[in-house]
């Protein structure tokens, strides 16, 4: 757990494992799916197909996929605003994901919340509030509940560098440390919180140092290297599942686009953006797969086509779905006793 960059430690355990090929192709497919869905969500917003906003995670897919890919069905995810795709990784039907963006009656929240702030109870992803660190605090509470129930399920909590400044972050991680809760804190450090640069957010270089305040391990990994993230995550998940408690994983990564679709992101330099785009997590991983001869042009094409079709169907479903009726305004405030 001590190593600062998973990848630097040479070949990763998972790569050496028996079914490395299957696993790696699975990861690849999920990366592509997240990328394509995200780009589609952006286009749809720009086409005016839905209002509100969208927070693209393009550029950060390796962190998202690497961390969540090996979760069990009964495990939980506490996504934040940039983690719409966490639902996809956890197995939400794409139809529901796009209905969510559109705020349609067929979306899990029946149009109540906000595009991209998606949760889906059957797969245990928690519908997030927009309030940063809120989903992290509630996710920690879920981990606390699961532990009290004696389950061996775990929670993965996603959040950004900015979230680590909030009081709620601190209170949650401190509590998780005291009770060795089964939770993995996955910080996607993309160097910016909206327009606030890291140097104004924290005096730290590695956000994994935050974990030192809570008595559990913290590790910083290359967040654009899906295998590095996957490796750190599976270790952390195993640790959490066996009752040893939380792990903090900092994934150093970058978002390609603005904070949201209405942010031109002029606060960043072109050079910075270009440098990171050169480290596209998909391209990096594709190279690994090609070197290993796991991926061919043919297979790549096939994968893309399959996903395109799934997306088209999902978008169509979302478009055709009705909006919730105005009469639903007062539904779901109270539970019926």
């Amino acid at each position, binding site marked *: 757990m001590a190593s600062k960059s998973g990848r630097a430690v040479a070949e990763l355990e998972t790569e050496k494992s028996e079914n490395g090929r299957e696993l790696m192709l699975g990861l690849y497919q999920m990366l592509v799916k997240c990328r394509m869905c995200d780009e589609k969500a952006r286009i749809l917003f720009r086409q005016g197909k839905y209002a509100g906003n969208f927070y693209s995670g393009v550029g950060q897919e390796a962190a998202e996929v690497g961390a969540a890919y090996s979760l069990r069905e009964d495990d939980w995810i506490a996504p934040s605003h940039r983690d719409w795709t966490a639902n996809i990784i956890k197995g939400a039907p794409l139809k529901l994901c796009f209905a969510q963006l559109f705020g349609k009656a067929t979306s899990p929240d029946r149009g*109540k919340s906000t595009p991209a702030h998606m949760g889906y109870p059957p797969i245990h992803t928690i519908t997030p509030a927009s309030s940063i660190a809120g989903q992290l605090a509630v996710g920690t509470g879920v981990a606390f509940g699961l532990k009290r129930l004696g389950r061996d399920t775990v929670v993965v909590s996603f959040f950004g560098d900015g979230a680590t400044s909030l009081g709620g972050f601190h209170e949650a991680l401190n509590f998780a440390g005291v009770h060795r809760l089964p939770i993995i804190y996955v910080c996607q450090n993309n160097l910016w919180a909206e327009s606030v640069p890291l140097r104004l957010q924290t005096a730290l270089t590695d956000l994994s140092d935050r974990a030192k305040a809570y008595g559990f391990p913290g590790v910083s990994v290359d967040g654009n290297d899906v295998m590095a993230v996957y490796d750190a995550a599976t270790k952390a998940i195993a640790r959490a599942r066996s009752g040893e408690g939380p792990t903090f994983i900092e994934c150093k990564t970058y978002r390609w686009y603005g904070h949201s679709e209405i942010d031109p992101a002029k606060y960043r330099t072109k050079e910075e953006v270009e440098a990171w785009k050169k480290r596209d997590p998909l391209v990096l991983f594709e190279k690994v797969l090609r070197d290993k001869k796991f991926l061919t042009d043919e297979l790549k094409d096939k994968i893309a086509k399959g996903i395109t079709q799934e997306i088209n169907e999902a978008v169509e479903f979302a478009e055709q779905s009705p909006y919730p009726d105005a009469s639903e305004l007062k539904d779901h405030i109270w539970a*019926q006793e």
Partner: protein
Amino acid sequence: MARTLTMIEAITEAMAQEMERDERVFVMGEDIGLSGGVFKATAGLYDKFGEERVLDTPLAEGNIIASAVGASMVGLRPIAEIQFADFITPAMESIVQQASKIRYRSAGGYGCSLTVRICCGGGTGGGLYHSQENAAWFVHEPGLKVVMPSTPYDAKGLLLAAIRDPNPVLYFEHKKLYRTAKGDVPEGDYTVPIGKAETRRQGRDMTVVTYGYMTPLCLEAAEQMSKSGVEAEVIDLRTLSPLDRDTVLESVRRTNKCLIVHEDKRTLGIGGEISAIIAEEAFEDLDGPIVRITGPDVPAIPFAPPLEHAWMVNTEKIVAGMQKLAAY
């Protein structure tokens, strides 16, 4: 079988019985375990149920609530304690953005069955930060239920109802009543329905709407007025959200006058809403202004005895309000 209990005893009994009955129920908060609580509300629970179910938390109100919200999402039934209402502000995010909205934002996909016990109120020399009552903030927030008992009977019955309610319920306890309020409390299981006010005294001449620690004072004032022939009806709201509009309106339509009494600050205290409901719904039945007797618009209750005394609503001030209204 009923016995005479103090309010604090009734509260402890409700928690103990419900923990016995329902494994999912547990309590968490600051100093509620080893020490049994600042006011001994959880006395004995730690010994009986152990640390797993009686958990002393870190000093972090936001996390007390957030972790309870999360635990309730997987089917547990937490009773979280906020030691003093004054210290609920760090938990505002968890209460208002999480607990009150998780069900709505997930269209019922996730629920939040959570009870938050909050000790509040002045008149005991607690000073600026151990005397506040801020239920009004939460009454403004749909998705939360808010209750505040004035008798040991209601304290037990409302607490059992709160714990079993599938919604988040803020249960305010007035510290001044903990040991001064005594009354019959059944040994067995019962609930007091959330959302129902209780008419504590019948009267034809005016309706007095109040709650919590002000209730016994209003009853005392009503008795005094009775001597001069004025009969006040005293309604104890018990539930502050959702408000029992029907009971209030029915009474005001009969007595044609309304006095509202609360300890909290006047501006946008709960009395403002009661008054507005009456002015909207029972306007034609009114024979006089709607009078409010409340704490002053001052940041909080100061410590020095003359200042605290000046803040607090007492029987004298209530009688003066009744007399003013009776003159109409």
